[in-house]
């Protein structure tokens, strides 16, 4: 519409944020603020970008509802990338409705993708899937198609549906070639890597080897007795015993399964289940009680027999016992798992995602920081935590380019 705005927007689209800033650096009208915000986001200064976009949204007049809505969408995307998960989702939904109403379908879909990505990060898979299903699929710009497929792949990966994930990533790879955005291509590649990187360890007869996501999925139909440390269950095909609320029983079951067909000594069992270094008579009594409880729980799947040394597992209707474990087992593995998406997280966002208290997360982070497994930057409420980058699901910034046009 306006000459310099057009010139700056063209510079941004051509991947030249500094050229865009040069043209509007000294202007404070609404479109200039929005352009500066997007340029700053592309340059990586997300805090500055956020405040500029917020000012732009305010500066657009009441007759410019579409431009204002686009600013809100861009701000939401910055919040998502900054892992600021407490961002008001209602404003995003309202902005999406405005864009829908005015026929800006591409940006409306972009807003919907941001919402779905937020739900995916929070682990609310059903809601994320539902949000995605409600969005139009075409005609969308290629970049939006990529994001859509990445979110779909992220959901499928979390659900252990490898085939669906691969199909979505294939479609994403196709669309990314049309979009021609290197950062987005890197995300698709990273997501593909997740499928080809061991996601678990399989322990059987005292030996272990890494498992890919697809192999974990295949275990669901295996005839073996599987002790699943991800879900704290013990299962054989459709028969599932959940010990999620019984950590002591689960620890015992796992020790027995790992040693199978050999037995496990009482001392080893007590050490694993009670963290008892020097077992005394009260520990022995407690072990007898807990084994009795485990025996009752496992009755449909296995028996627990006493041996000279201690106890051994005897599975029913199968001759195979497997333990499915995390690739790396350590304390605070869930915190690390989230941080491993390579993005900066606030401790409150981590607490929200893990459904635990901020204090618990803070303690875990402090411990992990002492052993150099995580790092932080910023101070006070702006402090963010990161782990060495590992491929994850959609994380990059893809601000809506039509934002620039009125």
């Amino acid at each position: 519409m306006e000459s310099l705005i057009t010139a700056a927007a063209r510079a941004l689209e051509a991947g030249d944020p500094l050229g865009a800033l040069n043209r509007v650096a000294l202007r404070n009208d609404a479109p200039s603020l929005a352009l500066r915000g997007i340029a700053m986001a592309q340059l990586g200064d997300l805090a500055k970008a956020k405040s500029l976009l917020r000012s732009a949204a305010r500066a657009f007049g009441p007759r410019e509802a579409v431009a204002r809505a686009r600013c809100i969408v861009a701000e939401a995307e910055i919040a998502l990338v900054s892992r600021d998960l407490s961002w008001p989702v209602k404003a995003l939904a309202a902005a999406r409705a405005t864009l829908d109403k005015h026929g800006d379908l591409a940006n409306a879909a972009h807003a919907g993708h941001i919402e779905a990505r937020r739900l995916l990060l929070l682990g609310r898979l059903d809601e994320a899937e539902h949000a995605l299903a409600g969005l139009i699929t075409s005609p969308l710009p290629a970049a939006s198609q990529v994001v859509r497929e990445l979110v779909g792949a992220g959901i499928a990966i979390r659900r252990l549906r490898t085939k669906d994930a691969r199909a979505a990533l294939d479609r994403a790879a196709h669309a990314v070639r049309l979009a021609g955005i290197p950062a987005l291509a890197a995300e698709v590649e990273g997501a593909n890597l997740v499928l080809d990187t061991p996601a678990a360890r399989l322990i059987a007869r005292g030996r272990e080897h890494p498992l890919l996501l697809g192999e974990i999925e295949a275990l669901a139909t295996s005839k073996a007795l599987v002790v699943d440390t991800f879900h704290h269950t013990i299962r054989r095909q459709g028969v599932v015993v959940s010990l999620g609320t019984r950590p002591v029983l689960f620890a015992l079951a796992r020790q027995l399964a790992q040693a199978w067909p050999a037995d496990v000594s009482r001392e080893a069992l007590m050490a694993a289940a009670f963290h008892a270094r020097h077992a005394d008579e009260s520990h022995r009594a407690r072990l007898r009680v807990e084994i009795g409880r485990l025996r009752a729980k496992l009755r449909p799947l296995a028996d627990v027999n006493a041996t000279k040394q201690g106890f051994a597992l005897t599975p029913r209707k199968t001759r195979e016992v497997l333990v499915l474990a995390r690739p790396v087992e350590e304390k605070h593995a869930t915190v690390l798992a989230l941080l491993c998406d390579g993005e900066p997280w606030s401790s409150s966002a981590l607490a929200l995602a893990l459904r635990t208290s901020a204090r618990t997360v803070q303690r875990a982070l402090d411990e992990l920081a002492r052993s150099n497994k995580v790092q932080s930057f910023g101070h006070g409420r702006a402090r963010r935590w990161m782990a060495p980058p590992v491929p994850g699901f959609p994380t990059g910034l893809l601000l809506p380019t039509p934002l620039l046009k009125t």
Partner: protein
Amino acid sequence: MKRSAAEIVREYGPFAGVEAVHGVTYDGRHVWFASGDKLNAVDPDDGKIARSIDVAAHAGTAFDGRHLFQIAEDRIQKIDAATGKVLGTIPSPGGGGDSGLAWAEGSLWVGQYRERKIHQVDPETGKVLRTIESKRFVTGVTWVDGELWHGTWENEESDLRRIDPETGKVLEQLDLPAGTGVSGLESDGGDRFFCGGGDRGNVRAVRRPRRS
């Protein structure tokens, strides 16, 4: 004030490689439109691009009979229509907030989008001779038969309006269908207006109401 729905008689484009139309003018034979880094001449009969000039073209376009005037960033370029050579530049009155451009009566008329103003500018020096206030964001500007018309575009709503050049009062208004933007406006001197379609990348011909 007379108000009616705009009658779109023809649409040109979209054109290959054109993302948006920023300014429109007419040289008596071709409709010229600005598309960011080019000025393109369209034959209004077959709708095809006959010629293009590589020049920065971010907003309004005008024609004085020999030269094309084209806004780029914060200046107005004077271009030899025959050779495509930039002969000179003057500063634009809106300092880059400029949108529409028209030629009439020896002056350039520049719409300043968000300021809702139209400036009359000396084409030699860029000096602002006078300023007319409008009520809405000004996009394209054109003069025809002593009438001053300009396009508006706010929140996906557009119209063409004839205003009193002295007072800025709206005398007549043609509403475009919802979601149809106007960027760039030019009269063909007869019963047609050519309007740029913004980021739809097209040009529309709208019928000019007949005088009784």
